[in-house]
């Protein structure tokens, strides 16, 4: 990056590209403003991958360094946020490879890859029935259940879930990050979602105390479920 500073400080509410341009000229303040916009999202992504707060914070710090080092290469072909997310995904995958952790949930007996009927149905019907937007306690319970289910996934399955559901990366982008084919990503995502749904249904189903009102509203008909989360 060039070391010449701009004459006027870039405004606090400047858009990403303006901050990027200033940071590329050596404006450390602009760089900090830019990264501070995304630092919590970066943490969320990293925590999604790594399931450890300290490791996630390490990735946040590493992302500052890596983005600063390579900001000169950013040409604006994608949004800054997409470019940043790919760096973060890359850092997280490297972290996981180094840590060499693998959970065998994907090979659990109840979860099969051959498309049998057993695996095609989520236990207990539609997942959406467990949601109730008006009930904060229920919402908290659901989020907690999701946390635990994410912990139970294998690193590879969790990685594709985070990249797709939180970061919104395309199959092609995910394939590049995980150094595999697009077909592998599709298959991995399919099974990851299947596993996640089953785990979630098991957890929520085990603790569900359907009220009379819930039963009446849903009536066991998946098509009539309310949209869960606002």
């Amino acid at each position, binding site marked *: 990056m060039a070391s010449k500073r701009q004459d006027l400080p870039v405004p606090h509410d400047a858009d990403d590209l303006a901050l990027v341009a200033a940071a590329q000229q050596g404006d450390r303040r602009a760089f900090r403003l830019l990264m501070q916009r995304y630092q*919590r999202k970066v943490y969320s992504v990293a925590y999604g991958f790594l399931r450890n707060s300290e490791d996630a914070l390490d990735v946040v710090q590493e992302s500052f*360094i890596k983005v600063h080092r390579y900001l000169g290469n950013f040409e604006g072909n994608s949004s800054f946020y997409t470019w940043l997310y790919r760096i973060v995904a890359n850092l997280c995958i490297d972290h996981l490879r180094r840590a060499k952790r693998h959970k065998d949930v994907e090979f659990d007996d109840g979860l099969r890859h051959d498309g049998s009927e057993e695996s095609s149905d989520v236990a207990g019907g539609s997942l959406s029935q467990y*949601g109730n937007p008006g009930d904060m306690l229920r919402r908290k319970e659901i989020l907690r259940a999701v946390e635990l289910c994410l912990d139970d996934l294998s690193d590879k399955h969790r990685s594709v879930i985070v990249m797709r559901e*939180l970061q919104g990366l395309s199959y092609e982008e995910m394939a590049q990050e995980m150094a595999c084919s697009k077909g592998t990503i599709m298959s991995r*995502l399919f099974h990851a979602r299947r596993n996640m749904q089953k785990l979630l249904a098991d957890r929520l189903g085990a603790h569900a105390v359907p009220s009379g009102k819930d039963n009446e509203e849903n009536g066991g008909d998946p098509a009539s479920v309310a949209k869960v989360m606002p």
Partner: protein
Amino acid sequence: MNRSSQEQLEHDLHAYFDGELDDATATQFESELAEHPALKARFEDLQFLRSVVGKTLESAGEQVDAARFEQAWDAFDAHLDREARLKHAVAEPPVSIWGRVSAFIKTPVAWGVGGAAAAAAVVFLVVGPGAGPSNTQMADASDQPAPNAKADEPEADAAPSLAPSPTHVADAESPKAPDAMTEFPLPEANNADVEIVDFAGHSGRISHIDGKHGTTTVIWVQEDDESVDSERSL
């Protein structure tokens, strides 16, 4: 619907949900969705899953104390400062031969050699030739080229001319001292008797290193619950 086309439908469902189908296939799939309530239900399940996963992961970031990010920024700033100092040190122009001689003259070794030579010269002048071993010593001292004499100095740099002074690189390495750090003595005998150790639920071990400071005790903590025969790998 046979099994393989059912699986294909499921895969198409995911691809449609992720916006990965081309326009023609997506349009065709939409009519499938309209015709099959069970398929539509699975689509809604995917929506539910995305919604809850997204919210769960985002909430993790919201809960982090701002001070932790500040810590990361402090470390980042220190990293940049360190890089800048190292760059500056490497960018310094190479010192000329006269510069090297001048730098050597300022070192304690040079003063010691010079002092010994001067003392020997005085003795020679006062006492006369054949005064004893000092002649040989003087000859040895004067014959020793500067770099060899310098090698006797335990703290000598291998290539001091790369940096203006040896401490410059050390400054780049050392962290910012929060208070004035007083001189701390070098460790002597490190022999320790560990009376109590609590690894707070982690596994750990105590081991020893036999070295120049006696036996140094190392208390290892294993933060991850990794077993030696773990089947876990990415």
